[in-house]
Structure formats: C-alpha cells, structure tokens
C-alpha cells in the first residue's frame, strides 16, 4: 500500500510520511507535534485520543492514518478560531470541569460532535453518549454541566 504523504488537519494541508496502517494518533503526536490528542489505552476504551473526521468523533488510536487521509481532521488545537474558544471549551473553563486535565481534550472533541448532532441533550443523553470517555479524576458531573452550559449558550 502507498504511504500516506499528506493530511488535512485543522483546515490546513500538512505533509506526513507514514504507512497507512499507522494509528492516526501516532502520526498526530509524533510527526506533527499535535500532542493535545492523548494516549490513554490504545484499545478504544478511554476516548482520550478522540478527534473529528469530517465532523464525526473517532478514536485516533483505532483509526489507521490511511483511513483519515483525504478527510477533514480536527484536533483540539484547531477548535479555537482566531483566539476565540469554542463554546464548549469556554464552558469547561466556566464550570472548572477538569482536574489533571488529561481527559479534557478527548472529552471536548467528543462533546463538540455530540452537541452538533444533538443541540438540546438531556443529562441522560449526555451520559449515554459519553460512556466511552474516561476521567479518572472523577470530574464527570462538571463535564455534564459544561455540556449543558455550552448547549444553552449555543441555542440562545
């Protein structure tokens, strides 16, 4: 199979050089220095590595870079526009929805996709959708609150 030579990340084409089977996570972190996307388990269980592919949340540890090639990839670094935070990022700040913050990028990326598809979620909706994202520090209630705050801002 042909090596992957370029990707579209956060609205820009960037050069890479990887075998197509390499996890997208590895390419983002090690080749491109996009270390906001985290490794937590490597088996799709924690959500720390979540990025958007064409707007859909994907576990980048489980996504071959060959699959991501040609799609629009969004990482946590590309969420803020011109220094203005995405409402969900702002909501995490306002709710203090982090302790060590290691799960935070994955939570936010999953949440951005979720809120786009489901702008008025109930608490139960949020919990169900976010079941695959782990926070070992136990900030879950504040993360739920941040989602609700962001949803309220977006719809107002």
């Amino acid at each position, binding site marked *: 199979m042909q090596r992957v030579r370029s990707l579209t990340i956060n609205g820009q084409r960037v050069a890479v050089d990887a075998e197509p089977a390499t996890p997208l996570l590895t390419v983002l972190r090690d080749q491109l220095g996009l270390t906001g996307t985290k490794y937590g388990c490597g088996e799709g*269980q924690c959500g720390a590595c979540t990025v958007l592919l064409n707007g859909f949340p994907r576990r980048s540890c489980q996504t071959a870079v060959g699959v991501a090639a040609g799609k629009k990839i969004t990482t946590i*670094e590309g969420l803020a526009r011109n220094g203005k935070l995405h409402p969900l990022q702002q909501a995490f700040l306002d709710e*203090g929805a982090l302790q060590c*913050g290691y799960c935070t990028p994955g939570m936010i990326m999953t949440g951005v996709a979720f809120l786009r598809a489901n702008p008025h979620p109930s608490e139960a909706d949020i919990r*169900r959708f976010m079941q695959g994202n782990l926070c070992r520090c136990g900030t879950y*209630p504040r*993360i739920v609150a941040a989602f609700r705050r962001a949803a309220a801002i977006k719809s107002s």
Partner: protein
Amino acid sequence: MSDPRGRNPVVEVERYELDEAPVRPFGLERREFFKLMGAGVAIFLLNDMPTAAQESGGFVRRRPRRGIQGRRFNFGEPLPQNIGAWLHIGETGKVTVYTGKVEVGQNIRTSLTQAVAEELRVGMEAIHMVMGDTARVPFDMGTFGSRTTPTMNLQLRRVAAAARELMVEMAAKRWNVSAARLVASDGKVSDPSSGRSLEYGELARGQEMAQAIVAEDPLRPATEWTVEGKSVPKVNALEFVTGQHHFPADIRRPRMLFGKILRPPAFGATLQSFDASGAAAMPGVVVVREGDFAGVAAPSEPEAERALAALKAEWKLPSGPQPSNQNLFEYLKAHAEPAGHPGEEFGFFGANEERGAVGPALASAAHRLEATYTIAYIAHAPLEPRAAVAEWQDGKLTVWTGTQRPFGVRNQLAEAFHLPEARVRVLMPDMGSAYGGKHTGEAAVEAARLAKAAGRPVKLVWTREEEFTWAYFRPAGVIEIKSGANANGLLTAWEFHNYNSGPSAIRTPYEVPNQRIAFYPTRSPLRQGSYRALAATANHFAREAHMDDVARQVKMDPLEFRLKNLKDERLKAVFQAAAERFGWRERKTTRHRGFGMGGGFEKGGYVATFAEISLERPGGEVRVRRVVTAFDCGAVVNPDGLRNQIVGANIMGLGGALFEAIEFADGKILNNRFSRYRVPRFSDVPEIEVILIDRKDQPSAGAGETPIVGIAPAIRNAILDATGVHLYSLPLVPHGLKA
C-alpha cells in the same frame, strides 16, 4: 504548509522547555544569583530555626514591628543552603515562586498561587509558579500525604508576607516616611496621606536584595482572607482546554527516539537467552541489554514496536506455585510478620495501640461481634501512564517525567548511573494525575538507559498494559475485628488486626476504653505502594462496616450509635451535617432501596459520607443513586477546587467500593486493560452533594485524599440496609449482588 497547531496567542509559552537556565540560588554568591535571575528582590524561607540561625551566622534579625524575623545578605556573601521555598520579584513586577511541590490534578498550582497573592497583595496573574524542576526549586520530599496545604501553603504565605513587608520598607525609605503609614495592595505600595504610590516592579528596579526568613510569623488570619477562601479557577486551565499544555508524555526533544521495553512474561522471570540480531539490523534501531533489562529505541513508535517484536528472548519462570487472587487472603495471613510493639509508629501514618484490658472486656461484654474483612489489590490507573523523556549531554542527564517525587527520582537516576545528583536534572510538567501511584521513577530510569546507549534523547511512554502490570498497586489486606458493647450500646472493647493493607487511620476515632490495634506487615505477592488516602480506605471500610453491624446487634440507629460513641466534636459535626442534608431520619428503606453512612478522621480532615443505593433487579446490579459528603479540613482555601476534589474522590472511591479488583495468577496480571478492569464511567456517577464545613479558626489541612474514605462503607451499609446482606469484601459486588 503552515503550522496546524493554531497556537493561541493568549496561551503562555511552554514552561518546560530548557530555554530557562537552571537557577539554583543555593550556595550561590548573592551577586551571581542576581546575574542569573535579573535584578530585583528575593526572599528565601529557611527550613528551620536552628539551621537558619547557623546559616546566617547567628544573627537572624528580629523586626518586632510586624513580627517577621529575617536577615539581609551582604555583598559577596553566599546565600543559604537550607531553603524550603523562595520567591523573586523582578523589575517588571513579575513574581516567580519556586517550590518542590508538583501539580498532579489536585490543583495546588492554583491554591499556592492564591496563598502568595493573598499575602503579597498582588493579582494572581502576576505570579508564576515554578514547580518540581530539581535544578530550579528547593529540595522537597514529594507531593503526597496531603502535606502541601498544611506545609507549603503556610511557607509560601510567610515568604510572600516577608516580601510585602520588604516592599513597604523600601518605599518608606525612598519617601523617608514611617513604614507604619504605608499600605500594600494591588502590587504596589501607597501612602494614603499623600496619595503617591510605587509599583513593586519599580521598587525592585536595580535592586539586588536578598533576605532570608525563618519566621513562625503571624499571618493574615483566615477570617480576613481576601484571595484565599474564595473560589478561583485553575490558573492555567486555558492551556488544558486548548490542548497546549505539555504533559510529560507530550515532551519532544530534537533528534528524539522512541523507546520500548522488553517485558518478562511473568513477575520474577529472568532472561535466559537473547538474540537481538533481527532488531539490530533495522535502520536507526538501537538495542540495549543489561542483565534482565532489554529494550529498543527507534526513530518512530511503529519502528520501535517492530524492533521490539523482532527481539528473540527466552525467559526462565520462577519455580513453584505462585499466589493468585483466589488464595490471596490466606497467603497474606500465612506470611504475616509479628505486629510491632504497642505504640509503634509507622512513619507518620498510624500506630499500634494497646489500652485497658481487651480480653476481660470482651469476655464480659453484653454484645460481642467478630468479623473478618478483605480488601483486594486495585490499580491507580491514572489516565496518563508513566512517561519519560531522557537526554544526556556532556555527562549530564536531564529527564522530564511524571512523578510525585522529582527529587526521589533524581536520586534514583543518580544511583542507577553512578552520577552525583548535581549532574541529574528532573523536570515534572503538570501531569495526568497519579493518586499516589507515581512515587517512583521506573520510566525515567528506563528512558535514560536507552538514551545513554543511543546517544540521543529517548521518549518512553508506558502502554496501558504496562501501567496495569509494572506499576504498583494499592495493598490488599485482611482485617479482623472483635468488638464488645454494653447493654446501652456503648463500645467497651475493640480489637483490630490489619494484615498488609497498612496502618494509615488504623486507630478508631470512637471512644473505647479497652483496645488492641495492630498492624502486621506481610510478604505481598504483588508490588504495592501508596494510594489516595493509603490504607485509610481499607481501615475505614472495615471499621465503619463493623459499626453498622454492631448497631444492628444492639438495635440502635447507626447514626445514633456512632454519635453515642463519639466525643470528637468535629467528627460528630460532619456526621450531623451530612445526615441532615441527606435526610437520614426521613429515609424510606425498601427491599430495593437502602441508605448507609461511613466516616472518620484522617490527615487533619473529618469526613462523613451518606449513600443511597438501589438494586436494579433483586439480586442484580447495585446502583449508587445519591451521595452526600460533609467535609471539614479547617479553613478552606479554595472552595471550588475543594468541591472538585471531594466529588472526584467519591467517584474514584466508588470504583474500589463496587467493582475494582486486580486479578492475577502465575505472576501475571489477568485484567491489565480498561476493557477488563472496570473503572467508574459517566453512567456510574450518582448525584453528589458536598457540604464544606469551613473552620476559619482551624489550620487548613490537605483535602485530596481523606474524602475518599467514606464512600465504600456508606455503600456497603446501604446494601445492608436494603437487603440485610452483610458484605465483608472490597470490592463489594464485582458481579452484582447475588442474593
């Protein structure tokens, strides 16, 4: 092609790059020091009075006006060695604070910044904390045991108070007025009578002023706090929500390679034969073998993985049967050492206790009860596994790694490579948490070995499986209790024997005239170590479960029974406060819904947690519906940060209470990944209410740990309440409640 990182201009520049030169004031000449730091004013806090008096040639100066004792350092004079913390005010008014404590998610970067802001009277944004960089901060034992708030917080407040006084004094001198009429606020000193003012930066300009203090000074009392005691957001939260913060695993160095370690197939296995020819032939791959240690470094992670897979190794397994989680508790008891003598202290964590005459008291008790409780090994499973980047240059070693003990890791590295400590630098970027699980420097040493052989920097990030296998665990344990109570429901006798899980919080807070309390270290089949609140979780679980069982036996309400046997007013107060908010007296127990409590005292904090559970189907899953925790840790520094910690501790504790347990056999961990080791997720989280009892008259205690101890017994007792089933093991219901 341009930078896809979309760097956010408001984000502070990376603080863990090596662009800031090491600055160790210790033993430097004053002049040298300011050359490195830039002009300004520096305050050092010396660790203790006798040393301080000695260090400063015996003339520690007392300034009775405000009670700060300090002294100035003259030209050419070496600065002191024995420093606990220090602070520098530069010519722009920027305040830099140096402490050996580290940020692991417990939010001390913020609470310590608050402490400095409070006393120095500057805005939080003017303060930059340098933490856990062994080349730049004073020695520190480590960040554990909830010691930061009671010690470092106070120390930094003293340092900041001294700096503020110095600023006032300098302004007074400049204006030639009495210092008593000047006021420090908002980063400046002003003279209300004339309306003039000078900013700290202006006062510091061109100065080379160093002062040491050793004071046990009067500080602003908690009742007058303006910055502390208030909720402030995490100081660098923006870096986290934008992905710009560099955790240890995110550090990158020029020419860096990626490492992988060859792990034995089982604990205790030794390397018999090793053939690295396949791996060594791969381009750019470096193979290292020293005894049983073998690993590879390669230009990329996939290449490192391939090289690792190409290593051919044969291992010799240890002979004889190995303990497993099936026979763990018999094993622990069978290998117990004798208990220490009464009164023996284990560090500062607890003690054996012998009081009155337990034997006769038990024999004559109206009610007697005996029970054995067991606690499984559990894993910390911090979301960021162990990670390190090691770099050698000119015989010096620099390692970035996630650890709660940067100086301990520096020592470990110095020993491993036979280096003087001065040639080793450890940097600890704010990490993806630890919960007591990262006191050691395994990844640091491994990365340094690879880097040494490769002659290039090497990054090593443990896989989740490695973290679950080669880190250490919270100790398993067996706890045996015998109790006696009289006909009125007063405890008369209390025997408590703890095998292996640890002595932390082993003493009972209840009033019992006759006691025998003992801790027995044993040979642990798995590597074990610290955990959030250490053994306080196990000891509270057993004790508080037993309290409910005795309450049933003497036919008393569990709350009344506890209050009757308690004298400690602060502990009573948290039980009462939580009971009230929880609605204890109005509870309606059914076969499917139960209510319970657990609480106690540890590390300066008093906690009571109440829980409501439901049984989804009779005999099925236990769900925790609602939790109320009341917590008193003295004067509260940051209420919002504290609530975050208490909620988090409850959620973490819920996993150990309900379902977490390490399974092992034949020297292998059988559930070494999240798909096999269940931790709490969104759906497990109950409604949690926190009541903070803010005791402004009491010193602030740390709070990251103690709030975890109440949840497990509260859930256990709630299951008992609903079903009448007494459970004696943690985890309580790993596979649902089998009626």
